[in-house]
């Protein structure tokens, strides 16, 4: 089976979605695409455009396929290997991946999460989760709001009650930073 063939994928969630031509070995990072290749006639899939419907931009998908192309030679887990999706493992990003994520804004990052969840690209999904976790880890409530673009919808009384919830952690001292 040739591995340098290309697949055409188009996001049909919005009209006139961009058609991506992705090397087969890169596209196979997606468990969904691999299942399609196994279940349907390969020659047909290689000439037709595979429709995918993800609520994310073409630019985000381009980033996903950029990652997949860079890692096209990375071993892929077997389709029947479900692994433990709920297992909590901390991932250390390699330097290329670290640079890849440092270049993208939060909108693209969330898009990558959605796209990789849909396409079932576990390594990239896990990395994106880890990046979001790293953004939040060790931050105060105020900082998290700024980073994740969350607006507080608590009333002043609720906010005060919430501050009290954790202010007790410090025995008669100033609370170090906001409600943390």
């Amino acid at each position, binding site marked *: 089976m040739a591995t340098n063939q290309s697949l055409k994928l188009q996001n049909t969630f919005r009209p006139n979605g961009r058609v991506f031509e992705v090397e087969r070995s890169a596209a196979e990072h997606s468990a969904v695409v691999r299942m399609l290749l196994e279940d349907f006639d390969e020659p047909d899939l290689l000439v037709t455009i595979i429709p995918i419907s993800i609520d994310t931009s073409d630019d985000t998908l381009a980033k996903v396929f950029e990652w997949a192309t860079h890692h096209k030679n990375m071993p892929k887990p077997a389709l029947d290997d479900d692994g433990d999706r709920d297992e*909590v493992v901390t991932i250390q990003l390699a330097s290329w991946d670290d640079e890849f994520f440092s270049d993208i804004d939060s909108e693209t990052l*969330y898009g990558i999460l959605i796209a990789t969840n849909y396409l079932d690209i576990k390594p990239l999904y896990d990395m994106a989760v880890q990046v979001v976790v790293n953004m939040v880890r*060790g931050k105060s409530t105020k900082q998290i*709001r700024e980073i*994740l*673009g*969350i607006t*507080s919808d608590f009333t002043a009384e609720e906010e005060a009650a919430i501050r009290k919830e954790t202010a007790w952690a410090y025995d008669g001292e100033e609370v170090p930073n906001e409600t943390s």
Partner: protein
Amino acid sequence: MAPFLDIHVPPEILQHIVRHLDPISLIALSQTSRVWRAFINPIHHDYAQRLLALELLPEHGIVPRFDERSQKLTPSWGSSEWESNKYACCGCMKLRTHMMFDNHAILRRLFRKPPPGSVEASNATTTDWEPLELSARWRHIQDRAAQAKEELEKCRVRVADWPREYAMLNPVPHPFARVPQYHDDINHEIEAHLVGTSRHKRRCVECQRRRGNWSRPNSHPGSKEAPAAKSRQLKFPSMWERHFPGLVERLPPESVPRIWRALRESTDGIQLSLYVLCCPSCDTWQEHSAFREWSLYQFGFGSPKRPKDPLLCNRCHLAAHQDPDLLAQELTMGALEMFRDDRDDTLHQLKFGWPLIHRDFNDSGNPNPPLAKFKAVGAEILSGLRWTSSTKQDIIIEDSDLPDLGRRFQRYREFIDHEVDSETRWRVLQSWFKLWFEDYDLYEKRYHWLNKQIAWLESDVKIVLNYVLKRDPYRI
């Protein structure tokens, strides 16, 4: 407009992200908005996990290492690193200073802060939050706790069995052979798997009192009106330093006579137990010296005397009586008594060697006195000394006698150093007398120094009061 994680990303992805957070960030995220609060829905268990993770942060002190084999603590007792350490109390959910815990609560294997890399420290880096209903989540928490307990029990059995297994593998034909100390790998297993695993059960002295842990007779050293808890032992160079820390500057260690560190070089003080008492008036826990009953726990035994009623801390005493002079008088009397005791001890040491010098020159009670042939020198050194009795077991001296006594000693030192042969010198300078001979100047210096401190305290009755109110040395 910035995209919102909670709006743009499906809940299953959010759940996955939240499960990767640490307990501190989990609570911080739950406090950002109503959506996140409803989504995470933190329970008491999450707050407790947060608190236990907080105590491991560097800003709440480095994790103390306790070597069970040598019983050595790093950082050492009394160091600033140790003093700044905070410990979690999962009763009142606060990070509190070590003085608010008894020894067991922060030094026992299962209650200590876990070292980095241990199972417990690793657990504290990630929350066990799950996207489940409360009842289901609680069941999971219980199941995990049961599983952890089972693992813990296995590890405890392995550790407990180790000396027996060691003894079987390395038989010693000696019934009184020393119990082997833990091997490195067993010690490592203890540090990695056992230390800190019961931190969630740690309670401060206030929580123990409120929970009624001390309702049984003799279960704690205080009374109902003045609850007290024994904390840890510390070394102090003297009683006045223990009860009035920093009131006067200590003498440098090289000026301390070796009689007080005779057991080993590192012994530089008296080992004393610390107690904390709760003032019934202001309801705050303070070191027991703040209550002016300095002899209450002096020897480390529980409640030898019933505290005065009411036992008020210094500040409450001042507020209740509105009489600074009364408090100043009580404090000064206490401090003076300790300094005078210390001076008496020093004087006793100063006098210690004179009967022995007399014995070495004379044959009274000594069949073969080593300096018998130097009777003339003996007379020169000892004549005119006032003895308490004809047996010449002790001398009477007053402050005005000290210069004369010093001159006599200098003559004796000159004589021993230059006029006797080495064998006689060796026979004379034995045991405690040798220490006395070598440290005589230190005793004299210490005596004069203590006299100076006593005169200073006597000069103004407000000195100790001002020190107590300004430094508040007993507040925890």
